Structure formats: structure tokens, C-alpha cells
């Protein structure tokens, strides 16, 4: 279903891009105040992102848990961890344009993406439907990145048809006993908490027998088993739940209302899934690589056909950014993002995938070598071919996930067909 794991983009702009004179052409027209804000964010990112992390983010080498947490803690100290939250919970009160500038500057400066499961996924649900105790306990911990959340939605038999999920929670006094299997659980290997959809009733409509539980991962009966994907990585997992005890106090909202909460979650911060800032940074990276690659005695970037392919993607990205800004403006005017926001997911992932295609095209022969360890921490052998090339093919394959996760793009079209066009 459309509520599948939203895996956050792990890419950014490489430091050698700095050589590429940053053109502000076609950037947004900013007011002097917005320019000042941009400079402030830019300086903050530059000060707080180490060379090591910047390089990893830029080239797509693997970021470990500490890399993410150290950046998120700096954001917390600055008060910038949760721009989308209401101010009373620790939000920033920024304008739509400021939020957009912030994302763009973080991506351009090589900051790791903030892991969404806590701050932008489970937090809004807790704010809207959680108990006071849940709010008081979890929200500050999310702000401080003291917990690592993962999302227990998909199951082996429940992908696009999420409402068919079968992981069962049976009430037993003051706790539930949970049995079942979750899958595609991104970064569960790092997580100590999982927000989880479970079946609490088989009566009536399938959607009306689902509850939303917060599960402690560090307890007997929870087994995390990595799944190796086609790019050689193991960022997704199977999570087996065997007689796992979950206190009733860890249920969000009412029993059997979990589906409603899950849908609410999807209605929040839909603009970040478009990843406009990350894609902009990747287009810059693409141009730098195309400038470095030789082709018929000149740089590949001078090839008219290749240039036009870049132009096509850039235009898509500009259109996407324009719609993102409109949706953000609507949001701040109190209009929730309608189902049209599904277009942001579709176009956003198409643009991201399009860039990975051009990157693999750009490096030509050096798409072939595959040394998975070269993307891990601590690997310091001589790269095969240009350093920028080593992660590009794995990324191309890895990024096919983008049109599948978070509700496949076909499911997004079903949503629009039903909710917007009235079919």
C-alpha cells in the first residue's frame, strides 16, 4: 500500500563540485531577508559538516548511525531539528520559502538527510492522536535524536494492499502479545523503536481492525534479519515478531483506528519526499562529472545530445520545485496538502531516477567495477577508475526502489484517480 517505508535519499553534492562555479541562474528570487537566512544556513552547514561526512553524502558512500546522529544533534542544539513541527513542540516557525531554502542548503552542503521515521513520520501522529504521556516522553527524545525509529508497515503478503496485513496483536491484561513478520523495514538494524501497524480485529472492514503500536525493538522475540538488495547493500530488513509484549500504553489513539492515523501520517510533510534540494545537488554533481569525462576529444558536457538530456531533467526538476513551493504555500495558508501531493512523489522519484540514469551514462566504462566495500567506512584502497564513479552504478540500481516505496507510483496514481478525478 501507499504507506510503505519512506527511505530517505542518501546523496548530496560532492566537494569537488565546489570547483564548479556555483551559478545562481534560475535559482529562486529571494528577498534580502531570505538571502540572509540562506547565508546563515549555508554557514551553519559548512561549520558543522565534517569533510568526511560531506564526502560520503556527496558520493553516496555509506553513512553510519553516528554520522546521522551527530548531524541531527547539531541541528537540535541549533533549534533546527524539526522545521515542520508547530512552534510549541519545538518547531522553527519558518515560512514555506525558509523551509525550502533550509532543505536546499543542507543538501548542497553535503549534510546527511535527516532520518524521517521519527521527526516527520511518527511525530505528527503522536502530536495528533497520542496521549499526553506519549507526547511528553517521545517528542523531546525525537528532537534530541535519542531514539532511532523504524516503520513496521509492509509484510510479505501486504505490499501495495497494506490493509491486508496480518501481524496480530492480542490483548492480554495491560499489554498486547504481537506475532507476525514485517518486511522492507529500512534501517531497522539501527532502530530501538518501531511504529507498527498490527491487526487487532478480524471483524468488519479490514481497515477497521488495525491498531498503531509503538514497539521496543530491544526485547526478546524481536529478530532483525537483513535483506541484501541488487546494489549489494543491506539497508532493508525482515523483522520477525514472536510473542512480543507491547504495553497498552504504547498504543497510539484508539484500538482499531490505526489505519486512520497511518493515513494522517501520509498527509504530512509530503513535500520532503520530492527531495528537490538533493536532486539539485545531484544535477550539479552530474554536470561536474560530465565536465570531467572525455568524449570524442572534448568533455561529455559539450555533447549536444547529452546536454539536452540534462536540460530535460532540469526542467522537470524546476517544474517539481514550483509545485512543491505552491503546496508549501498552501500548507502555511492552512490548506492541507491534497491528494495532488501524490504528484510530488511521482515526479520527485522520476527525477531522482532520471538523474541516476544520466550519471551511469556519464561514467561510461567505469560503471562496471563493483567493490561493495569501497563504499564502507574505513576502506582506503586506491579506487578503480575515477573516485566519483565507484558508487554510481550501485546507486542507479538502488534507486529503483524510489518508485516502489512510500506507496508505489502506480498506487499514487490510483489515489489521484479516486480522490482528485473522482473515478
Amino acid at each position, binding site marked *: 500500500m501507499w504507506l510503505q517505508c519512506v527511505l530517505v535519499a542518501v546523496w548530496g553534492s560532492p566537494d569537488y563540485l565546489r570547483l564548479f562555479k556555483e*551559478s545562481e*541562474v*534560475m535559482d*529562486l*528570487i*529571494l528577498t534580502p531577508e531570505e538571502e540572509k537566512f540562506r547565508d546563515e544556513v549555508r554557514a551553519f552547514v559548512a561549520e558543522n559538516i565534517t569533510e568526511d561526512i560531506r564526502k560520503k553524502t556527496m558520493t553516496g558512500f555509506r553513512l553510519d548511525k553516528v554520522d546521522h546522529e551527530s548531524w541531527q544533534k547539531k541541528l537540535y542544539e541549533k533549534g533546527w531539528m524539526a522545521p515542520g513541527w508547530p512552534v510549541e513542540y519545538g518547531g522553527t516557525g519558518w515560512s*514555506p*520559502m525558509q523551509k525550502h531554502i533550509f532543505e536546499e542548503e543542507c543538501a548542497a552542503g553535503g549534510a546527511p538527510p535527516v532520518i524521517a521515521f521519527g521527526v516527520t513520520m511518527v511525530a505528527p501522529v503522536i502530536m495528533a492522536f497520542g496521549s499526553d504521556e506519549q507526547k511528553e516522553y517521545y517528542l523531546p527524545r525525537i528532537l534530541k535524536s535519542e531514539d532511532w525509529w523504524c516503520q513496521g508497515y509492509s509484510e510479505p503478503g501486504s505490499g501495495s494492499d497494506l490493509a491486508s496485513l496480518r501481524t496480530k496483536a492480542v490483548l492480554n491484561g495491560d499489554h498486547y502479545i504481537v506475532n507476525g513478520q514485517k518486511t522492507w523495514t529500512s534501517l531497522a538494524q539501527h532502530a530501538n523503536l518501531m511504529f507498527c501497524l498490527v491487526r487487532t480485529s478480524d471483524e468488519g472492514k479490514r481497515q477497521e481492525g488495525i491498531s498503531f503500536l509503538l514497539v521496543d525493538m530491544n526485547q526478546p522475540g524481536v529478530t532483525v534479519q537483513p535483506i541484501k538488495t541488487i546494489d549489494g547493500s543491506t539497508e532493508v530488513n525482515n523483522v520477525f515478531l514472536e510473542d512480543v509484549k507491547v504495553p497498552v500504553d504504547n498504543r497510539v489513539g484508539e484500538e482499531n483506528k490505526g489505519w486512520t492515523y497511518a493515513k494522517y501520517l501520509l498527509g504530512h510533510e509530503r513535500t520532503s519526499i520530492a527531495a528537490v534540494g538533493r536532486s539539485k545537488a545531484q544535477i550539479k554533481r552530474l*554536470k561536474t562529472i560530465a565536465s570531467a569525462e572525455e568524449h570524442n576529444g572534448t568533455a561529455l*558536457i559539450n555533447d*549536444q545530445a547529452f*546536454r*539536452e538530456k*540534462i*536540460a*530535460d531533467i*532540469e*526542467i*522537470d526538476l*524546476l*517544474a*517539481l520545485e*514550483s*509545485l512543491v*513551493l*505552491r503546496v*508549501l*504555500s*498552501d500548507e502555511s*495558508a492552512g490548506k492541507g496538502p491534497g491528494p*495532488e501531493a501524490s*504528484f510530488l512523489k*511521482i*515526479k520527485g522519484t522520476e527525477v531522482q531516477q532520471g538523474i541516476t540514469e544520466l550519471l551511469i551514462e556519464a561514467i561510461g566504462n567505469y560503471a562496471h567495477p563493483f567493490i561493495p566495500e569501497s563504499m564502507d567506512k574505513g576502506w582506503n584502497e586506491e579506487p578503480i577508475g575515477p573516485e566519483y564513479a565507484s558508487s554510481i552504478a550501485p546507486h542507479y540500481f538502488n534507486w529503483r526502489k524510489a518508485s516502489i516505496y512510500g506507496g508505489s507510483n*502506480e498506487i499514487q*496514481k*490510483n489515489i*489521484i*484517480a479516486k480522490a*482528485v*478525478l*473522482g*473515478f
Partner: protein
Amino acid sequence: MSFTFTEDQKLLSESADRFVLDDYNFETRRKIIGQDGGFDRDNWEKFAELGWLALPIAEEYGGLGGSTVDTAVLLESFGRGLVVEPYQSCIVLSAGLLQVAGNEEQKRQHLPSIAEGKTLLSFAHIEPTSRFNLCHIRTTATKQGDCFVVDGEKAIVHNAETADYFILSTRTEGDINDENGITLFLVPSNSSGIEMRSYPTIDGLRASEISFNSVKVDKQNVLGELNKAAESIQQVVDRACVLLCAEAAGAMDTAVKLTVDYIKNREQFGQAIGSFQVLQHRAVEMLGAKDFSRALTYRAAGAIDQSNASERMRAVSAAKVEMGRSGKLIGQEGIQLHGGMGMTDDMPIGHFFKRLTMIDAIFGNVDFHRKRFAQII
């Protein structure tokens, strides 16, 4: 940079939509196209009364001093009903050039009367061999005493037969494709030596091929600086491109609605064909194409008044490419989803398809603007 409409823009949009809804249905439009000159002068008067003609004209010349976004709002509504009145040729292009290039006296003389709907202008610029190169001008203007003598051919001059004046681009210096050496003139359409062959266009407008045979133009009618018109033309045509995209956004909106309505009602195999997922997804693609094109168009419209030349050209080209791609998808799919009925002249969808296709094919198509965009990396 704002991404939502102001109150004024909302009001404008509502009243223009209301006009299209009440006074411009498919049958009415068909009759209007059949009239002499190909548009309705009563409508033009109405546009003047409503202040729509004055909208983009500066206040000191009897206008309302509206922004490009304001005009885009109006044209989006026009696009919804495929309004054929000569707004693009007279107001956007010709009055636009007068405003950018004209001297004080020329502006005082003509702009208020244009805003009141009393004077009609047309921009005679494209030539048979110019394709999309705005600087490709063979038509010559040669100085003779107090006059210039003009010789040459102009092509696809929209609404020429109803114009009181032409804004005419000529070569006064340099080679055919040179940026330098282009001069604009304001030429009364009844000047002797002008021959016109007028015809309908495939999208329901009127245009003419015009020969200028030793046409004498007073040197007072030079518009702007001698030899230096290229930048003004580029600037005004760029704005016209964005406004054509705005018109296209309206046309796309109606085309998508017509198509969705059609497949909801058309029954085959005992059910509405809109119940088939394969068609629903195609309708969704159409809607998305419209939404993205429209968003980029308004962004370009908002940027155009504040940008330098290369930023402006990139913004405009991006919008024009997106519009061309989206318009083609919506037009072609609109016909396909209507099936055989989509092929008939009696169904509106084909008329939207034709207008969208012609908007792509003027002032640079997708291919042209993609190349222009790609040059400015």
C-alpha cells in the same frame, strides 16, 4: 516570490472565468470565428470596459500597470475557453513593444487608445525563412531623406487584416541573422505598397502573409533606437511565451476535464470506460502534466519582471518546454481517450488539441527551447 494568488488576482480570475463560462461556449466561439476578421468586436469593447486591455499597460498611459502574473491569470482564463480575440498579438506583443521601445510621444499617442480598445495593432515580425530565430530578418528599411523605404515579406502575422498599425521589424544594417541592425517601425496598415494575403489558422485564429513593396515610413515612426531593437524584441517575445504558456494552462485544464467527463460517461462492455485502471492512470498523467506546466509557468511569470536576460531566458525556456511536452501529451491522449468521437470537429477536445499544438509551434517549440535552456548551464 509568491506562489499563491493575491485577492485581486483571484477576483480577476473569477470574472474572466465567468465571462468564458457565460459568453464563450463552444458554439458561440464557432460563430465568432466565422465572423469578418475572425473575432468579436463587441467582446473587445467589453474587455476594454472591464480593464482587461489596460491590464499590462503602464498607469501613466491609461493602463492599470499589472504585472506579468496578473496578465497570466487573465490569459489562463481565456485559455479555458480558447478565446480568439487578438489579445496576444495586440496587447501582449504590440502594446508590449510600444511600451518597451516607444518614445514618450508614441506611447502617449497610442497606448491609451489601445487600452480603450479603439486602436488595434499587430506585430509583423516572422518571415518565411526565419523559423524560430528572432534575429533572422531580411525585410529591409532604407533611409531616403525623411523617410525609410521598406521592402520584404512577413509571415504568419496574426490579426493583420484587422490591425490599424503594424509594429514592423526590419533590417537597417548587417547580415540577415545579425543581432545588431534590427529596427522597429510603427506602420499604418493602410500605407501604400502593402499587400496582404489573409487566411484562417488551424487553431481558429486569423493570420496573413504580407508583402511590403517600397513602403514609405516616416522617420518619426521609428520605434526605439535605430539598429538596436533585438533586445526589446527578445524581451517582449519572452514575456509573450510565458503568457502563451498561461493560455495553454487554461486550455490544458479544460482538455483534461473534458476527457475525464467523457470517459466517466462513455460506456463499453457494460460499464463506464473510466472504470478501467489503464485509462484512469492515463487521465492522471494528463492532470499531472497540466499541474506541473502551470506551476512552472507562474513561476516564470513571477520571475520575468525581476531577472537579468539569461535568467529570464532560462525561466521562459523551461516553461515553454514543459508546456510543449504537457500540451502534446494532453492533446494526444485527450483525442485517444475520446476514441472516434475525439476525431470529430463537433467535439471541443480536438480544438483544444489544435490550439495547444500551435502554441508549441510559435516563438520556439520544445526542441528550440530545450537547446536554448541547455546553452545556459
